[in-house]
């Protein structure tokens, strides 16, 4: 069932300058949906419209099938976690968590029970009487999470909640958020520009650019089956290699309407595969040993490419031969959209 629905939603700050235009989006109940995209793509604005912090300029936005026009943020049964935590600096941790409950007129005994429970889950029990300035960044983000969780909302909205934390803490909190989602079973909508975060946490990814949805689907769909060059290049570290078709030799048997050819770095092989394949030559420029894999940057007659090799015992140097399995190639047309018809041709 769709928990949140956006139909033909648009957002203007100034007339004729749309931030978002005719956006259609459905967010499934219980999903961990990621709004992903480069900065300025409208993902935060979309989230803020769902929260009711930004007005919807056109179209309808529904939560639970109910039109949210004229519904105040506090009455939408949602909770939001902000990038800069936005915890009230003059209140203690307990007061921060309690503020929303008090405003919702929840009786004192119930409040105390819920706060104790949340304190246990987030590991904040011993910090309850501290002011935020006596907490570390990670603890502050936990307060923000606790403040959201204690309200038992149907929908959690998160606007880059981990980007102010250091790498180690970010990885840790990422796992905790996944666990939290599985435990609470509520709907999570999470905004990020970090595709690693998106891939690792999301059950559903919505990739946006310039206020439009470029592709949506599960992380696997988005990664394995990109709809366009943008998606192919945005997802994956390193991203998909994309060559211009006109630069490639005829012998590659590229479909006529294809303008671009893409392939993932892990699909570049240093040995001939058993399937039908394309052979090319390249010169290794850099080699990065990452432990379980090695990343190579190579120069080929058709452009630079990146390759991922899991055979860490092999060390390639200088000029090498490479093979691409034909079935793993993606073709895109002049509009940078995926051509899927070639599948039948071969």
């Amino acid at each position, binding site marked *: 069932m769709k928990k949140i629905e956006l139909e033909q939603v648009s957002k203007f700050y100034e007339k004729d300058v749309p931030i978002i235009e005719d956006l259609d989006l459905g967010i499934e109940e219980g999903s961990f949906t990621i709004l992903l995209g480069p900065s300025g793509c409208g993902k935060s604005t979309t989230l803020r419209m769902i*929260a*009711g*912090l930004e007005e919807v300029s056109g179209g309808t936005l529904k939560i639970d099938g109910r039109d949210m026009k004229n519904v*105040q*943020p*506090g*009455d939408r049964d*949602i*909770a*939001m976690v*902000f*990038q*800069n935590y*936005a*915890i*009230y*600096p*003059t209140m203690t941790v307990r007061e921060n968590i309690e*503020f*929303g409950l008090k*405003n*919702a007129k929840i009786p004192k005994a119930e409040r105390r029970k819920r706060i104790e429970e949340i304190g246990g889950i987030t590991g904040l029990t011993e910090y309850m009487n501290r002011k935020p*300035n006596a907490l570390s960044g990670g603890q502050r983000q936990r307060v923000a999470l606790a*403040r959201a969780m204690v*309200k038992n909302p149907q929908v959690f909205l998160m606007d880059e909640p981990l980007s102010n934390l250091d790498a180690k803490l970010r990885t840790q909190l990422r796992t905790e958020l996944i666990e939290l989602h599985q435990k609470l079973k509520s709907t999570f909508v999470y905004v990020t520009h970090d595709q690693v975060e998106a891939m690792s946490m999301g059950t559903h990814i919505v990739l946006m650019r310039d206020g439009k949805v470029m592709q949506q689907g599960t992380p696997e769909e988005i990664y394995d089956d990109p709809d366009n060059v943008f998606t192919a290049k945005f997802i994956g570290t390193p991203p998909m290699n994309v060559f211009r078709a006109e630069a490639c030799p005829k012998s590659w048997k590229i479909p006529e309407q294809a303008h671009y050819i893409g392939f993932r770095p892990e699909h570049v092989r240093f040995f001939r595969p058993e399937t039908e394949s394309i052979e090319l030559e390249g010169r290794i420029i850099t080699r990065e040993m990452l432990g379980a894999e090695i990343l190579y940057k190579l120069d080929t007659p058709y452009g630079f490419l990146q390759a991922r090799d899991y055979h860490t015992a092999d060390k390639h140097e200088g000029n090498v031969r490479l093979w691409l399995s034909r079935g793993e190639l993606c073709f895109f047309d002049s509009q940078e959209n995926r051509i899927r018809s070639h599948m039948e041709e071969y």
Partner: protein
Amino acid sequence: MKKIAGKSIRGMVNILLILIFFVPFYWMALTAIKTLGQTLQSPPVFWVSNPQFENFISAFHAIDFMHYLKNSVITTIGVLAAQLITIVPAAYAFARYDFKGKGVLFGMVLATTMIPAQLVFLPVFLILSKLHLINTYWSLILPQATSAFGIFMLRQSFMQVPKELIEAARLDKAGELKIMFRIMLPMCRSTVATLALLSFIGCWNDYFWAKVLTTSDAVRTLPVGITALRNVDGGVANHIVMAGNLIMLVPILVAFVIAQKQILKAFAYTGVK
């Protein structure tokens, strides 16, 4: 060499500034414990060996001190309360809302700081008189019930509060009043303390409005009352006047000592974390 010269010049300027502020204060305090003869002595004396502390008692008894004190307290509390009610929402609206004519309105608010009281007291008097409010506490409270400077200062402070905090509060079901008084004001407490103290001093010491908007002693405040002390001992009792002034000063000193930390913070550090 240059460094030493610069340092000594700065030192001298500092000493001069201290003298400019300190000497009048010292003179007042000294006069308050002189005898009548010493106040009239020429050349003047800068030290007295037999302080006349009974001057304070004389000042206290020469006029109905408690009556004026009561009026001062009521007026000051009234003004501070009125300013809290008027300044906070105005500053919040100017800092956080977008509405038509905001710029013009704010410009008008700022422009009022440039109009001297002497220019408007007559219309104010006439209005209050029409409303039959002359010689009531209202006549003293209403003209000072808001402060353009206060609105400006608090607006600047409010603008420093991250907007996410207000949004978080909205999501926490807090109304605008709650956001103002539970979230914004506590975050800007240094500015609030400074404004409160400035208003307190201004109102407590105010002579002009208290004089022009009253025609009888019924609601006159201490500054007006104390001028009557001059008439003790045949019109030259400066020592008693100064003793009265010193007594009047005590609450200001107490308030300053209490608020000092916050005020220094407000001027030294304008950001809000």
